[in-house]
């Protein structure tokens, strides 16, 4: 009986049903609870929320505070600026690297590609930690930077050491370091597929190398730029580990604010409201990414 059910239809029901139910229970329900929580009222009970009082079901106080309290607006601005900065720097460093990878010969290329991916497999936390060692005021790297700075600028601007740690610059630098592979890999995949004869044709028609790049290579690589850009921007905007370790705690990013509201302030409804707001801000970039990703996959299937 069971065997027959299994052979006819049961196996496909299981293949769909098990992961479906799992994600419904452990992903969708928790997420809906957070959305619901953002409309709740903070109480001093355990767990610290409830529905009642002046606003029984929908309490929009949390969302109102998002706009009235400058802490949240500043945190959102800091996050978006840092993530955008990391995205642009990743593009400026990653684009020439990806293009360079398409120009080295095959044997080397595989080795170099692996060297791009290798840091991604090693611990994320330890890659952030490696920079903490470099940026500290006594480190060789900081001394080198300080010496360079003191030589280049007038005497009056000389410093004992460059204040790298605990700044927004440090956050952007470490984000670029940890997310650069996410920029290089989609760009490389895109650039590698381009037809080199187009470059040659442009060159034969008298274009200079930079003009070839600007008029032929760059326009064709826009899907890769967008894919890489979003892969850097989306995780960077919600980043928690990097700003906690190397960031300026007086100008926190939004991830830090959510975590602090939740753990230190024990204000679950507020933490949830900030989380929902972050997701709403991220919907735009996510949709852009999904659109370009779907188009790229469709093209791949055609080829």
């Amino acid at each position, binding site marked *: 009986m069971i065997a027959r059910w299994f052979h006819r239809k049961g196996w496909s029901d299981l293949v*769909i049903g098990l*992961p*479906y139910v799992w*994600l419904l229970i452990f992903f969708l329900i928790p*997420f809906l609870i957070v959305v619901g929580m953002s409309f709740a009222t903070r109480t001093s009970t355990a767990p610290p929320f409830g529905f009642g009082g002046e606003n029984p079901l929908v309490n929009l106080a949390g969302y109102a505070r998002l706009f009235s309290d400058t802490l949240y607006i500043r945190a959102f601005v800091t996050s978006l600026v840092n993530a955008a900065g990391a995205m642009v720097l990743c593009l400026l460093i*990653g684009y020439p*690297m990806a293009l360079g990878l398409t120009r080295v010969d095959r044997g080397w290329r595989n080795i170099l590609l692996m060297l791009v991916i*290798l840091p991604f497999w*090693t611990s994320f936390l330890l890659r952030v930690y*490696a920079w903490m060692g470099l940026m500290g005021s006594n480190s060789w790297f900081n001394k080198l930077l300080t010496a360079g700075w003191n030589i280049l600028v007038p005497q009056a601007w000389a410093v004992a050491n460059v204040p790298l740690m605990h700044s927004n610059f440090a956050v952007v630098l470490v984000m670029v370091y940890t997310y650069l592979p996410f920029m290089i890999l989609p760009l490389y995949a895109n650039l590698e597929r381009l037809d080199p004869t187009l470059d040659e044709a442009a060159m034969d028609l008298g274009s200079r190398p930079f003009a070839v790049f600007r008029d032929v290579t760059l326009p064709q690589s826009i899907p890769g730029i967008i894919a890489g850009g979003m892969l850097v921007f989306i995780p960077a905007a919600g980043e928690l580990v990097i700003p906690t370790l190397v960031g300026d705690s007086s100008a926190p990013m939004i991830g830090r604010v959510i975590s602090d509201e939740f753990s230190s302030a024990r204000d679950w409804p507020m933490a949830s409201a900030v989380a929902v707001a972050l997701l709403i801000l991220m919907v735009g970039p996510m949709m852009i990414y999904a659109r370009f990703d779907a188009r790229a996959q469709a093209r791949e299937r055609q080829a």
Partner: protein
Amino acid sequence: MKRSNTFLLTMLGFGFAFFYVPILSMIVYSFNASRLATVWGGFSTKWYGTLLSNAQVGKALTLSLEIAVISSTTATILGTMAGIALARFTTFRGRTLFSGLVTAPLIMPEVITGISSLIFFILLGQYLGWPAARGFTTVTLAHITFSMVFVTTIVQSRMLSADRAIEEAAMDLGAKPWQVLRDVTLPVISPAILSGWLLAFTISMDDVVITNFTTGPGTTTLPILIWSKVKLGVTPDINALATLIVLTVGLCVLAAGVGMNRAERRAERDRRLAYRANQ
């Protein structure tokens, strides 16, 4: 052309220096005799001794490995099922929601996943009495949930590029759908399943944020142990631990990469030989 290549190769060199100088610096400073982690005070291996005699580190590593093996294996089973479902069953009720559920965890900020899982587990404990406390079980459940979708992505894209004709041939020869899955489809996608498992394992071994939210007292994984120490600053024994981790992972990935490269070249050569033999 030549000048632009010089520029690109310089950028490549600069980029790889950027990737590897911090890691190399950390490795060098793990052999620093000085207690000050960033000031060189001569060569010494004493921090490795300190590290090896630290029972906490061994315990955390064992715990991380246990959680990673259980969660990545479960995540691979569930993730593979979801990948097969999305690639082969084009119409079933709730497919749009399902494909959304498979994509959303990939782009959801970790803080939000962490907080929502924590609230969920706390409320479950409050109203159902299970889980009574947070620890091994809750961390493992959270790891399964956010790593299974990575497996799904890999399996799904392998399924879509696989040749369906073999499956159809098996079907024509009288195999039942379930037998086709077991004897044809699964062997074909087994490399994707393996890389999915490896990715899920790495993600679980590496996770800080979600683990930090879903763990409880007494359940300290290796990343959580490092996290609690690193928040206080750079110390030489963490340099030593980091060096061991980076070298272990690096050697494994290099070996896997070299192996794959060689297999690829062998396959290429076989294909060429087969082509010539057919001419």
